[in-house]
């Protein structure tokens, strides 16, 4: 069974949203992580931040209401909320590194069972640079990797050991894909939850990393 792209995004983003606590300071990466903001549970309000110097992000403005000087870290227009503030880039990354950012949600090319993450370079092929990804991975109190379980060729993105150059070492605390929720621990990668549309065997078959399968596994 496979899912259409919108459903994949919805499953991942809505599950990640449940990890956020009221009052958390949260940085959402480009792509699927950005969508998390649309699935915040009732009564949960977070400080969304953007590393280009905005604290308190609203949604995408309606057509014609864009402000040329209000963009998010992906370059897209964004709107203010009543509590919005702006800071310079050094202040912004001091917030990231200084223990003031509770959660960062990032996409990844690869994550491994030791919590390593690679998402900034494919040597010889794609060298965009790390942008703020290394700072966010090292600085945030909790790093959640949110991405499709497999790449476009169907290969697992959750590996025994990352093959691409790392963005950061041992920082990923939770992995959320359209198939499963997994937690890198000192014992190894633990399968915590399986999506309701699939099953444990399918998750194991789609995962290169060694999964620890506990007796009790949740569904989402």
């Amino acid at each position, binding site marked *: 069974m496979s899912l259409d792209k919108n459903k994949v995004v919805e499953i991942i983003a809505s599950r990640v949203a449940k990890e956020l606590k009221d009052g958390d300071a949260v940085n959402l990466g480009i792509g699927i992580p950005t969508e998390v903001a649309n699935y915040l549970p009732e009564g949960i309000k977070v400080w969304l931040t953007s590393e280009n*110097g905005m604290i308190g992000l609203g949604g995408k403005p309606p057509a014609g209401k864009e402000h040329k*000087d*209000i963009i998010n870290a992906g*370059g897209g227009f964004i709107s203010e909320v009543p509590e919005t503030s*702006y800071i310079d880039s050094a202040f912004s990354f001091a917030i990231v590194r200084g223990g003031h950012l509770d959660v960062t949600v990032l996409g990844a090319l690869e994550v491994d069972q030791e919590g390593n993450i690679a998402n900034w370079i494919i040597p010889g092929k794609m*060298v965009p640079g*790390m942008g703020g990804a290394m700072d966010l991975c*090292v*600085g945030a109190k909790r790093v959640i990797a949110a991405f499709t379980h497999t790449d476009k060729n169907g290969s697992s993105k959750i590996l025994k050991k990352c093959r691409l150059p*790392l963005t950061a070492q041992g920082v990923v605390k939770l992995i959320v894909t359209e198939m499963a929720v997994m937690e890198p621990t000192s014992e190894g990668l633990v399968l915590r939850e399986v999506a309701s549309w699939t099953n444990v065997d399918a998750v194991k078959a789609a995962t290169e990393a060694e999964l620890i399968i506990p007796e009790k596994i949740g569904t989402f």
Partner: protein
Amino acid sequence: MAKIIDAKEAASLVKEHDRILCGGFLASGAAENLIDALVAQNTPNLHLCVICTDFPDRGVGKLIVNKQIKSAQTSHIGTNKATQEQYNAGTLKIEFNPQGTFVERIRTAGAGLGGFLTPVGVGTILENEKELIEVDGKKFFLERPISGDVALIRAAKGDKSGNLVYSKTAQNSNPLMAMAAKIVIAEVDEIVETGELDPDLIATPGLLVDYIVQHKD
């Protein structure tokens, strides 16, 4: 007191082999008129310091398309094909920095410090080019300051004394760049009389700014 000049005169202050510090993030807060004038002047062999290399037709990306940049210190080139092509061809040298490290290196230069220690990048391939220092059992990179010859920055308003206020996310690295270069040129959307800006809102004091250029669309 800042001197009000036009973009062409401002560009003439940039010389071959200069290290230019450019404000902006994905061209938001980029000094577009100053960059256009520098493209028209066609000064080669510049060293560029900027958060990212913007787009081929916006921000510092235009200097790269025009092949005026021989080397760059930046954090991201993914939105500019010209940067990637010249980097892959070996005609443009790039030192990649984590974004927070990059801006802190600029800040450090402007604040007169010799460097700083950061955990960002430890355990990655950046270890090949950085000095590791262990403090209380924790590993850090020693990061050195980055200063420049000329800063090309953008602000929303500037008064005739050079005081600047910024607008929203167009602020980004601009106030940092204003601290770290020998010559600071600010392109502003509006020039006002001294005394008109709320002193509480001035982010860059005029003593840091040498020249003001009126932005024109």
